[in-house]
């Protein structure tokens, strides 16, 4: 999986509207002397984008793995805790309502993604019987519906600005933002990844049932809340960078479990990070080279690449 990621990253740096030989790519990364034009393209345009693809893919893979483990539900993805719908609304608010302040888009997407998740947690985890999985999932669906409706409302209020919004809604990376977005968002990603790493063992315990986890001295409700919080951070941050790519969060952990034949989070969480990064980087490379010089949003390509692979594994597994 690491090899796949390295290959995808190299391809992502080498291919594009202008093809740069792999040797020059490696030389640039190692600080060797290369033609100035190639260096410019790689350092200013491609490297930030490749890094974005890697961190977003990893974030969504880990977010999905955490949520599926925490909610013990194979259908869980950042959708079910409202993050996707919230982030979508946050982005639309900026893009449609005040397009002039587009620089605020990542922050707004991140903030609303987290607000939506906070609402779901508030309803799902507090009060009597709080922490019940069905309640969390139903609260998530309701809150997601609320934000989707608000987004739809915005879209119909500003029909002339909708084309700007499509790129975000289907999910896509851009080269124009350089390192800026990453510089704003990285602390959220870092915190999310660190919490996720510490949740590996608790999630393993939860896998054997709430009572076994409690016997081992853990608190199942706290594990669920913390793991879901890490997922909310990662998925919101991912949406802030790359728009709505929730499909990745749903499918990657399944791919990893099917390929690895194990559900242990010690395996699933780190490998989901690698697999998510590899798949998104590969899909993004395809997306911007297939109809070059036009760059397509990566979301649909991700689905086109991911679905056949997923369906093939699904059939093989049973």
């Amino acid at each position, binding site marked *: 999986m690491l090899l796949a990621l390295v290959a995808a990253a190299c391809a992502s740096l080498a291919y594009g509207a202008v093809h740069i030989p792999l040797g020059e790519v490696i030389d640039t990364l190692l600080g060797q002397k290369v033609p100035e034009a190639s260096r410019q393209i790689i350092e200013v345009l491609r490297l930030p984008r490749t890094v974005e693809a890697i961190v977003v893919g990893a974030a969504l893979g880990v977010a999905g793995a955490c949520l599926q483990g925490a909610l013990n539900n194979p259908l869980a993805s950042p959708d079910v805790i409202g993050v996707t719908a919230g982030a979508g609304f946050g982005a639309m608010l900026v893009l449609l309502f005040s397009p002039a302040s587009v620089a605020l888009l990542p922050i707004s997407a991140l903030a609303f993604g987290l607000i939506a998740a906070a609402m779901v947690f508030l309803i799902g985890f507090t009060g009597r019987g709080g922490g019940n999985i069905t309640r969390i999932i139903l609260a998530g669906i309701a809150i997601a519906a609320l934000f989707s409706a608000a987004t739809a409302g915005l879209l119909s209020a500003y029909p002339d600005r909708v084309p700007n919004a499509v790129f975000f809604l289907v999910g896509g990376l851009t080269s124009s933002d350089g390192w800026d977005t990453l510089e704003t968002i990285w602390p959220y990603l870092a915190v999310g990844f660190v919490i996720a790493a510490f949740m590996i063992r608790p999630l393993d315990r939860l*896998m054997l049932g709430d009572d076994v986890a409690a016997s081992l001295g853990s608190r199942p409700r706290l594990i669920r809340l913390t793991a879901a919080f890490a997922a909310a951070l990662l998925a919101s941050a991912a949406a802030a960078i790359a728009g709505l790519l929730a499909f990745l969060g749903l499918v990657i952990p399944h791919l990893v479990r099917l390929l690895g034949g194990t559900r242990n989070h010690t395996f699933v969480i780190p490998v989901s990070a690698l697999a998510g990064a590899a798949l998104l980087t590969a899909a993004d490379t395809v997306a911007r080279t297939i109809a070059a010089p036009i760059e397509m949003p990566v979301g649909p390509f991700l689905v086109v690449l991911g679905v056949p692979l997923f369906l093939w594994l699904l059939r093989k597994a049973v």
Partner: protein
Amino acid sequence: MAPGRRTAAFERKAPLLEAKEVQVTIGGEEILESASLDLRRGELLAIVGPNGAGKSTFARAFCGLRRPQGGEVRWMGVPLTELRGRKLAGVRAYVPQRAQVPTGVTVQAAVNIGRSTHLKPLQGLSGEDREAVRESIARARLEGFEDRDLSTLSGGEMQRVQIAVALAQGAPVLVADEPTAQLDLGATAAISKMLRELVSGGMGVVLIVHDLALAAAIADRVVVMSHGRTIATGTPEAVLTGQLISEVWGVQAELVHREGRSALHVEWLDQHQT
């Protein structure tokens, strides 16, 4: 089964477990009115009683899985309220009634998870931990099953895995809620023998069990529960009399118990109705 370095505050001479007048209210309803028991080292204590008497609720309360509204619980002299996380995991292991059986988890992986209470976050299993896991698997008679997926096991095998996971915790007390409830005769006997072996090794075992004949045969003492109260405690012969069975279960029955064999002679149908 040494309690280990984290149990410095525990009193060596205190009973393993002491629960006094434990009270639990769920949703405004008093499920447990007043339940008490004590567990000594090297003892198998059976909690018996009709369905809904509060056996499982009592066990969950003294194991720290559910907060009691009243009463006092002490583990080796230390109040339950002062025990949390790894420290709580170090005094008792709880084997739930129904196991969650995930696919894609091997027996080895499950028992490794049981050992994780001995590790710091992000720390891997040491050689000593691996040895403890191997020993737990051996004591639960699961050698040769290490690489089997949990979803491929029979009910009896899965129950032994549950016990192995609990043993890997390395706690001096094992609390098991109806471990034999859905098992056939052979599997029930296997689990019973295993539990007796643990007791011979110095552990304390609390067993919630429906089968009075089984309780009489394997328990050192029994605690009888009825309507949220513990109403009698003592050796099976002293406590499980025909009169008590009639009062608590409403059935005419007589316990026959000699030389390690036991049977419950039950008057299933009232004579005058047949």
